């Protein structure tokens, strides 16, 4: 008996080659805008990314040597606050949807999370404005962090859930068979296996809110100086970029591009850092 190839094997191979090429071109197309935008930012903003940028406060137009250090630190603080709210609620909520509950309840919760993901960020800003800013008669970093955190929650819930659902049942059964309690199984086996995916979801959410301007307009408000108290207004990089970008001055435009460059690069570095830290700690399936 000899191995017989199907009659159409050349056509199938050709199709496969074609599909690979299309996929490769798609990947290029997806990256193209990034390349173009990044190039534009570099061309226009690189010259303004200097020591002053990272160490000085903003100066009025016409006065050289201004920077955005307070906006950078402000953004970090806001992201920390947002993460403190978004990560625990999002990850644990995603765990519930994947591990517990009933089909009907979970389906409803999933639906609600999807809907929330479609709410424009400016609406969250307005909601937190009504809840926090009006009540305490003042803009604050807390309000800004809350608005960003609320945006993160449905995003992280869904990505966490999707990834946990794909952990094979065999892993759970093996742990349970060894007498490990249910919750420990989930935390130490399931979540650990899915941790790379969970972290991807968290990073995506952080990247998303890190560049948000609209929700901060009515909550964090912005601050040309240092923020010493989280109950006071605070500067944020996207806000500062926005203010400078819509101004008429070339110098401020260049600082806006520089700010954008720093923002994008910063998030990229965080990405790389987290990947290095979590490398080899999980058993990924592929």
């Amino acid at each position, binding site marked *: 008996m000899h191995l017989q190839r199907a009659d159409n094997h050349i056509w*199938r*191979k050709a*199709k*496969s080659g074609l*599909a*690979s090429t*299309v*996929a490769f071109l*798609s*990947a290029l*197309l997806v990256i193209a*805008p*990034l390349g*173009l*935008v*990044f190039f*534009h930012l570099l061309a226009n903003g690189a010259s303004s990314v200097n020591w002053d940028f990272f160490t000085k406060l903003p100066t009025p137009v016409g006065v050289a040597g201004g920077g955005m250090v307070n906006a950078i630190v402000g953004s970090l603080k806001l992201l920390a606050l947002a993460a403190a709210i978004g990560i*625990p*609620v999002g990850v*644990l*909520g995603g765990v*519930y*949807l994947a591990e*517990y509950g009933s089909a009907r309840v979970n389906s409803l919760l999933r639906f*609600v999370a*999807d*809907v929330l*993901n*479609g709410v*424009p960020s*400016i609406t969250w800003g307005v909601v937190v404005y*009504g809840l926090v800013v009006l009540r305490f008669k003042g803009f604050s970093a807390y309000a800004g962090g809350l608005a960003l955190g609320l945006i993160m929650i449905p995003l992280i*819930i869904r*990505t966490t859930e*999707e*990834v946990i659902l794909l*952990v*094979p*049942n065999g892993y759970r059964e093996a742990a349970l*068979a060894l*007498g490990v*309690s*249910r919750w420990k199984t989930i935390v130490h086996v399931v979540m650990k296996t899915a941790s790379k*995916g969970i972290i*991807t979801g968290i990073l*995506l959410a952080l*990247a*998303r809110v*890190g*560049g948000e301007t609209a929700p901060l307009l009515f909550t964090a408000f912005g601050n040309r100086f240092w923020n010493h108290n989280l109950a006071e207004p605070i500067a944020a990089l*996207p806000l500062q970029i*926005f203010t400078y*970008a819509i101004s008429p001055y070339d110098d401020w435009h260049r600082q*806006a591009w520089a700010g*954008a460059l720093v923002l*994008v690069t910063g998030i*990229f570095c965080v990405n790389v850092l987290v*990947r290095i830290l979590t490398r080899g700690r999980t058993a990924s*399936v*592929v």
Partner: protein
Amino acid sequence: MNATTGPAIAAVEPQIARHAIAPPSRFGDKAFEWLTLAMALAVVVLVVLLGWELWGGSSLAIRKFGFHFLTTSTWDPVAEQFGALSFIYGTLISSLIALLIAVPLSIATAAYLTELAPLWIRQPLVSLIEMLAAIPSVILGLWGIFVMIPWLRDYPFPLLKRLFGWTPFFTGPIYGTSMLAGGIIIAIMILPIITSVSREILRSVPNLQREAAYALGATRWEATRIAVLSYAKKGLFGAVILGLGRALGETMAVTMVIGNTPQIAASLFKPGYTLASVIANEFTEATTDMYLQALFEIGLVLFGTTILANLLAQLLLQTMSTTSTTRAVQ
């Protein structure tokens, strides 16, 4: 455990796993379950909060305009006549264009990253794509005005007009800022999220599936199509829904390239206006109470549109074949 479990058994398995194998309730288990439940219920709290704020902020406008708000396209802040129809149209069309462009590209890219790309290129490409997600909407919008729109106006748009000018979608003068430009920029914004999530989904498909396909003599593409993509259909659909959510709510970048003209036109070269854009443009400056209320009502309509779009997606999901399982089996 054999690998040939069918859909029926796989559907029943989760239930069995939960009830028969789980040990008798211990405090830790119960506590953890309640904790995660409380966190999951946060979404319900959020949605109620949102609905309540939006409803409360627009009650007067609702009483004044009633159902006509959804069927009129006039938007006149001076005469205080408000109608949301042109914005609804704009949001739906721009999101549709964005999905049509982004979904095939994203899934193909995800497939490339997990199945076809050489190993050394995978992580750098992934990081690059996630960097795209980091670009603030405002910056993308500015790039859109200064770089993308002039290029579109000079090359692709005239080409489209020449090829498809006989259809109602590509007629009329070309300004650059247009519904099509809005759709394209939304597509750019949702590419990273659909690609990243799809990639995670495809990555988690067990190797056994691929090996089985290859063992049967499949080519690379056939293995990807049959063993991986179909298996992950539900997860991929979830990724698309996430993308849709982002598309519906995208504000700053769109408002800079779409032309901001409340009108309903078939031609994609004409400027348009979306629900999210009108809120962003006019919220801070709305001077009268009724104006502000009308904007809140737009927010409510957007909320409703998102719910409807998701409902439709769910229905589509139900009718899709259930041969792919949501829980992996070994």
